[in-house]
């Protein structure tokens, strides 16, 4: 079952925010801080306000309600008041007849900022006590005693870099004021509920006067989940000017002022016995959060819960801090901290394998999670598919044979080397914040038999609407084309959780299933009465009413019409909350996830040791998606996540100046292109997997396959070590051609 939105995408008729025609629309542009940290001494916008075409220039003094868009903590003003904390922090909002006029006027704003000392290193921030919230730590078992029993100990420091989302549709919103101080906002946003709330707070009006409507996003990947600035700002202008206002960021504004995947630094110590069994692990995380907390604490929590990766670690000490530095606040990005948590254990294990003189895949296989193992936060594992995925991969790709071929290649080649890595995946599914695991669905049946479904899920290319449509059609017993999934709208579905954590289909699909079951039940009951039989004898299948398995001569459309005339309610709302979830942040114990998604992959690279360049030659991927609602969609999700993660692991690099300015723009930030993708790229969905904990026995697929991309880094590291024997900690991620080259030919390499 395909994503039917594609039929519109290929014609260019699918509508994004900037495609909505609005006569008389004004354009808003943000004036942002040129200084990483400082005190605002004066701000003069008079010249800008008088510039041609300018309708207004707003500062914090003009905010009608609460000047605050902080997501978790109230630490982020919409417009700076008397100080700035990062380059790119909004100070004023210019509204004009055209974006061009607004941009010209920006240059007329005069601001005097006294620079203060800024911090850009997370470790330095941690040392100075500049952290968001407080340090977290959990000790499981007795690491100290276990380390004493270890034959091998791998110890070192690691780094993983930031990643820019590069969603194609930059941050944008359109706000249209309406009667009685109400407003409708069309936005490219993943969090209808939270942004709805921010809008009302900043405008100083009750939420029932704000309608947030979301048709689809041109990509998001987490980057449109938590930071409300670019949605609230145009809404404020529209609200004050009583005219439609839109704001959209240019690509370079988006790159330089929006949040990224968090960079992390790590200190680790991993201990193993003589057989390569992990006995103990200590890991300290330094998360580079930026100036405001934004959603960083939640991302950190995910890293914290995934430091064991796919492995059984009986004795563990995990700790870490969320470092407050003077860069734009980082936010969610596909994987939400799990890639970083997983990266550290993968790198530590690979380091240990070098010390022991064994293959990394041997160590990994030996320590994979199995049924009955207990996770560090107390969950006893069942239905673990880690080994199944690994074995399916072995069958598809032949791990041992591939390793032998790589070794043979390296024995016979000097100026090129090959490297490979096997990457297991274990990814907890649910919002780690238990409260967010709720969703509702509104199903409306019309008298012509067409069905409209509204949920809190946001379509951003991941196909959640297509999946919800499948669930509704299947449950109601009608052909797919009778069902349409409507926009995500806060007037139809209030207080919706973000579409993130890979839970969009799980939560909203389940709510839709409940609503459809109840609606179908009512219609079946009505039909039973009409045919003078019991409900158990009535079925609805393919849009036909069957009685005792035989067509009753009543179509779905006729049934809808008749039921409405008989005063049967054709609308149904249902709610779903994932059962049995709990987590105690004091004890750091609980059951935060409903279930786990598994996978395994083999990545192989070819390294050019003369030039320091490389090619990812192949990727074989097994992904456990349970009983897929749509194999086409799920395959696409896996392929997309793997390649996006390969970008994070290899070429995607952001550089900041010593003053905290983002130096990398669209012309330098390179993400994978069609020629980067491995020639051999085979993704297989794990066969015969089921999952009682999610909709129609499926499993979440958005984020878990991102983990496979770590394999590209590990395979490169493997090739580097075929060139130069090295049993130290692994180099920083990403392994850009420059880093690779310097490893091979820099001082360290000589």
């Amino acid at each position, binding site marked *: 079952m395909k994503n039917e939105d594609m039929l519109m995408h290929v014609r260019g008729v699918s509508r994004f925010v900037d495609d909505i025609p609005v006569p008389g629309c004004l354009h808003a542009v943000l004036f942002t801080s040129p200084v990483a940290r400082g005190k605002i001494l004066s701000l003069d916008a008079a010249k800008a306000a008088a510039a041609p075409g300018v309708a207004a220039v707003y500062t914090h003094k003009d905010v009608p309600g609460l000047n605050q868009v902080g997501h978790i903590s109230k630490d982020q003003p919409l417009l700076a008041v008397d100080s700035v904390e990062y380059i790119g922090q909004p100070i004023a909002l210019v509204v004009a007849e055209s974006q061009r006029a607004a941009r010209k006027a920006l240059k007329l704003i005069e601001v005097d900022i006294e620079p203060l000392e800024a911090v850009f290193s997370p470790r330095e921030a941690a040392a100075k006590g500049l952290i968001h919230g407080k340090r977290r730590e959990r000790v499981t078992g007795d690491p100290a005693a276990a380390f004493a029993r270890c034959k091998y100990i791998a110890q070192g420091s690691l780094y993983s870099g930031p990643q820019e989302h590069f969603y194609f549709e930059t941050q944008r919103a359109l706000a249209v004021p309406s009667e009685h101080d109400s407003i409708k906002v069309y936005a490219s946003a993943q969090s209808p509920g939270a942004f709805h709330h921010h809008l009302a707070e900043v405008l100083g009006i009750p939420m029932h006067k704000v309608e947030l409507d979301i048709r689809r996003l041109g990509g998001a990947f987490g980057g449109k989940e938590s930071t409300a600035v670019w949605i609230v700002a145009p809404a404020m202008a529209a609200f004050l000017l009583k005219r439609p206002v839109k704001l959209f960021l240019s690509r370079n504004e988006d790159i330089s002022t929006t949040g990224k995947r968090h960079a992390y630094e790590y200190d680790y110590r991993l201990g193993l016995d003589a057989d390569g069994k992990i006995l103990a692990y200590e890991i300290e995380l330094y998360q580079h959060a930026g100036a405001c907390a934004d959603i960083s604490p939640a991302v950190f929590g995910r890293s914290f819960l995934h430091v064991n990766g796919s492995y059984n670690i009986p004795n563990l000490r995990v700790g870490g801090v969320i470092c407050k530095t003077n860069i734009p606040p980082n936010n969610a990005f596909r994987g939400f901290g799990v890639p970083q948590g997983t990266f550290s254990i993968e790198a530590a294990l690979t380091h240990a394998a070098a010390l022991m003189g064994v293959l990394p895949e041997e160590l990994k296989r030996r320590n994979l999670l199995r049924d009955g193992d207990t996770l560090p936060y107390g969950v006893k594992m069942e239905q673990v598919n880690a080994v199944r995925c690994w074995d399916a991969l072995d069958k598809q790709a032949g791990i041992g044979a591939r390793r032998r071929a790589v070794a043979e290649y390296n024995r016979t080649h000097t100026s090129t080397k090959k490297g490979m890595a096997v990457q297991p995946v274990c990814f907890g599914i649910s919002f780690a914040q238990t409260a967010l695991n709720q969703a509702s669905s509104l199903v409306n049946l019309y008298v012509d038999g067409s069905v409209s479904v509204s949920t809190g899920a946001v379509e951003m290319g991941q196909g959640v609407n297509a999946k919800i449509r499948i669930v509704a059609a299947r449950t109601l017993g009608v052909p797919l084309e009778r069902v349409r999934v409507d926009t995500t709208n806060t007037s139809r579905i209030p207080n919706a959780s973000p579409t993130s954590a890979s839970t969009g289909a799980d939560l909203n699909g389940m709510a839709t299933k409940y609503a459809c079951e109840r609606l179908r039940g009512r219609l079946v009951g009505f039909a039973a009465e009409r045919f003078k039989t019991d409900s158990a004898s009535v079925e609805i299948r393919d849009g036909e009413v069957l009685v005792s398995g035989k067509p009753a001569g009543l179509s779905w459309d006729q049934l809808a019409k008749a039921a409405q005339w008989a005063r049967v309610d054709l609308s149904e709302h249902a709610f779903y909350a994932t059962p049995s979830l709990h987590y105690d942040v004091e004890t750091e114990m609980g059951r935060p996830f409903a279930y786990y998604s598994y996978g395994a992959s083999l990545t192989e690279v070819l390294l050019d040791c003369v*030039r320091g360049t490389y090619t990812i030659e192949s990727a074989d991927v097994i992904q456990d998606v349970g009983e897929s609602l749509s194999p086409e969609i799920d395959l696409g999700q896996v392929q*997309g996540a793997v390649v996006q993660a390969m970008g994070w692991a290899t070429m995607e690099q952001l550089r900041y100046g010593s003053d905290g300015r983002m130096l990398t723009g669209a012309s330098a930030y390179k993400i994978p292109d069609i020629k980067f993708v491995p020639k051999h790229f085979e993704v297989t969905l794990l066969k015969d997997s089921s999952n009682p904990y999610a909709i129609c026995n499926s499993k979440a697929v958005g984020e878990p396959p991102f983990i496979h991309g770590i394999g590209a880094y590990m395979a490169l590291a493997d090739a580097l070590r075929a060139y130069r024997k090295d049993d130290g900690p692994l180099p920083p991620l990403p392994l850009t051609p420059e880093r690779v080259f310097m490893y091979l030919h820099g001082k360290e390499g000589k």
Partner: protein
Amino acid sequence: MLNFILNNETVRTGEKPGMVLLEFIRDVKCLSGTKEACREGECGACTVLVGRRRADGSVAYRACASCLLPVGDVDGCHVVTVEGLAGNELTLVQRLIVEHSASQCGFCTPGIVLSLTGFCLGARKLAYEAALDALDGNICRCTGYAAIRNAARALCDKLAKVKAAPAGRLEGLVSACVVPGYFRDIPDRLAQLPGAPEAAGKDAVLVAGGTDLFVQKPEQLLESELSFLSRRDDLNYVKEDGEALRVGGAVTIEEFRLSEPVKKHFPSLEGDFLLHSSAILRNKATLTGNVVNASPIGDAAIILLALDARLVIAAPGGKKREVPLSRFFLGYKKTDLACGELVSEIIIPLLPEGARYNFEKVSNRTTLDIAAVNSAMLLTPGPDGSIADLRVSAGGVGPVPLLLEGMDAFKGRRPGEETAEAVSVIAAAGVRPIDDIRGSAEYKKLLLGQLVLAHFSGEAV
């Protein structure tokens, strides 16, 4: 007034010639299928087709980034956006993208549709590898490309029977539902458009491909009078005169790369220039433009320096002078080109007997990226196999594209490993790169040394 055909509509507009086509399409014509996602030609979301009449009256279609294409430059052309493709039925390209689930969020999809359609119309051979070349400027952040590759492969399979050269292919493509039937009438309709606008004044800004200019200063160009090199049919040629290749000032990188004389005399340039930029930029960017913009890292300059190219510079009155490229670059972004002058021709001497030419480029991403360091070498052996002449160029390691000095010292040496090492050391020692977003100074210095070794090793990876 500008006259052109947009999809199936004849357009007559008084908009400023410097307005980029993307803005015209979206804001003036309210066609929202063409997407803006970077405005620097880096992503391909705004790809459109520009059809220009060939000498034989047929129309040559090229996929271009509409964000860098001034509307004045499409005067007399047929511009095709996604709205100009499908009627009630999807086109073949659209159908295959859907069949292979090669679209997720959909924001890049119209651009991919146009690039693949442009490939069908313009590629010399409808082969899978060429389809990938055509898609090398269409970035997709969602799909991971596997499905797009499958759609491209299926497209080539479906069109396996279309053997005609691009100029005679239209009928076959209409019947294969690649383009709608109205395309048949376009050549005649273009012929009926009013003639080109009056020549620009002498102070007009000369626009070659515009793919760099419109990234650097679009707002300034919007207000400027512009003169378009693409209208200079007299400068659109690649020919050979027995001693050298002569390349007209209006020739695009893609035309140059795929031209018969280049294939014959410099076969490796076809691949080297594939690394220059993406298809949607190569279709517009010119060889001369890439030299004149004087970027210290320009691929064309580096290649042509090693090949000992000369520039023919024409003054406004038509008077011409010839300058060796090695003396053209005077300082950072400064050249020996006076106001009003233009490079009308590039002369590339044919390779001497037995000469070895090699180009190396290392960038963060292999395709569509600016090099950290690029370098080319031309080694001419004497009758005994020793070095008679050695030219090594290097980009990204100084304020201008450099022709490295000190190479004369190697005349008479055997071009073996020892010489390679010595050249490498001299090359790296002679440059003063700086730290920037393309890499650290130390990296670039060391990398140049390695690339020189690669020149000699002849080992291509």
